């Protein structure tokens, strides 16, 4: 009985705590004909303003909850991997350390202080008329 | 018909206004009532209109055709056509201008089909039984010599007018003898005011050349 109560209490407590998570997407930008992916509907206007391409396709998406200060590995496909470590949160500002790899090559590394919901876009490699973009959003 | 004669180069005539606006609108209002009755089939109302404009229409017809019998026929035809077309008469228009337009169109067509010279001598045209609205030159107790000279002058003028094209003859008739302003003439002959002025100008220039011996 006491175990049952402990488990139930644990569930309630866990449920009441809103877990912070990270959402990462790998996006391919080009000027080809066609329609952008529906999953990117909210993001496409921002992407067009920043990068100017007309067509956006989602190549991969990863969502993961931050657990303590463990580093999350987000494999987005096409050899692109993002490592994210959530270090702290203060006044709703989350501090993240992230690194982006293409295969075994490290492309870029940084520390960001970001509010939940604020989209971050990382311009990746470009080949001809195609560009890879990575978007990161902290979700509470 | 009286007029204010303009002095050469010093006294330019004032802007034309032949009748008062009230007089014109009253006459047109009467005409409109009669036309409405005509449109309902009232021939008696049309008789009033014919009586009112018979002489003016005849004078216009004569001015175009320069022949009494042809002018009478044209006048009659104009009024018959007027009755036949009365259903298409717009109430905001002037009956006077409208019947004049019918007469002008018929007259020009007539001249184009048959180009005739006047055959009626002037002395035969004067008939004591004719109504008082006849146009007579302003002269009192002329001597036989004066009368003969006047007759000769009129013949020369008639001959000169016959030399004009029907279109030029119409504008001369409407301006000089009917005392219409350019806007009214433009409505009657269906052209712009500029065209009226141009036709009048060349008609007078042509007459100037033809009447040089008598001017």
């Amino acid at each position, binding site marked *: 009985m006491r175990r049952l109560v402990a488990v139930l209490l644990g569930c309630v407590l866990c449920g009441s705590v809103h877990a912070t998570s990270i959402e990462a997407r790998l996006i391919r930008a080009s000027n080809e004909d066609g329609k952008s992916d529906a999953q990117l509907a909210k993001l496409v206007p921002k992407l067009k303003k920043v990068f100017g391409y007309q067509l956006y396709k989602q190549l991969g998406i990863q969502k993961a909850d931050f657990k303590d200060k463990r580093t999350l590995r987000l494999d987005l496909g096409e050899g692109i991997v993002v490592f994210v470590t959530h270090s702290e949160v203060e006044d709703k500002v989350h501090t993240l350390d992230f690194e982006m790899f293409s295969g075994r090559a490290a*492309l870029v590394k940084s*520390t960001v202080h970001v509010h939940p919901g604020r989209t971050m876009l990382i311009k*990746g490699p470009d080949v001809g008329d195609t560009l890879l973009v990575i978007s990161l959003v902290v979700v509470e | 018909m009286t007029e204010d004669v303009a002095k*050469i180069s010093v006294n330019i005539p004032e802007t034309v206004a032949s009748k008062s606006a009230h007089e014109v609108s009253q006459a047109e209002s009467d005409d409109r009532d009669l036309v409405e009755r005509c449109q309902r089939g009232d021939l008696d109302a049309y008789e009033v209109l014919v009586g009112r404009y018979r002489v003016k229409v005849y004078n216009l017809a004569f001015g175009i055709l320069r022949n009494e019998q042809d002018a009478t026929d044209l006048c009659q035809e104009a009024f018959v056509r007027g009755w036949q077309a009365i259903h298409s008469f717009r109430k905001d228009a002037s009956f006077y201008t409208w019947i004049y337009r019918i007469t002008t169109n018929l007259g020009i067509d007539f001249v184009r089909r048959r180009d005739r010279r006047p055959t009626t001598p*002037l002395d035969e045209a004067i008939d004591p039984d004719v109504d008082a609205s006849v146009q007579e030159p302003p002269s009192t107790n002329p001597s036989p010599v004066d009368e003969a000279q006047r007759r000769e002058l*009129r013949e020369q003028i008639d001959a000169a007018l016959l030399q004009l094209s029907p279109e030029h003859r119409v504008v001369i008739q409407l301006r000089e003898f009917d005392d219409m302003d350019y806007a009214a003439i433009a409505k009657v002959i269906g052209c712009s005011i500029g065209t009226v002025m141009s036709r009048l100008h060349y008609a007078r220039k042509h007459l100037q050349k033809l009447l040089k011996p008598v001017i």
Partner: protein
Amino acid sequence: MTHHNTEAITGLLDGELKGLRRWMAQRHVSRCTTCADEYRRQEQVRQLLRANPPVSPMTDSPEFFWSKVKTEIQRRGDERVAAPTPHLVFADWVRQHQFAVATAAAAFIAVVGALWFIPAFRGTPMVTVTPRTATPVARVEHLKTLIPHTAATAFDDKDADVTVIWVTGLPWTPDMNKMETKFANLDT
């Protein structure tokens, strides 16, 4: 009349020129002998015609004339013809009513101009639209790249409401995958 517009002499003689045109024609005629002569000649023709109108009175009495017209009308029965209503050409109509047209046009422009300043008439809503609150900008630190001839910079795009990390010079060659990392332990 700076040139000899002799047609205008006809208008002047007949009292049909108005306003500035009349003044200019009058002035020219008083100074130009050619045009003054032309004016005189036309005036003579006019006087001659008016003094000698065509004398050919109608021989038919009013009653006789009407009887002929009525007979012909009755003979033709219900036959109908069309006769266009006399009217001025549009340009002449405007000129004849230029004051009224100008007044109406001025009034229309004044009304439209006044209404332009009333937002309701411009189709803009009366309610004030609150601008969308942008999410606070992110702060980027310790940004670096390690591949030679590449660089990275961070900025906020206020229009798009995003933070951008812009990396330049990234090659995309198959060799990239073989390049060794220097930052992280990929085995973890």
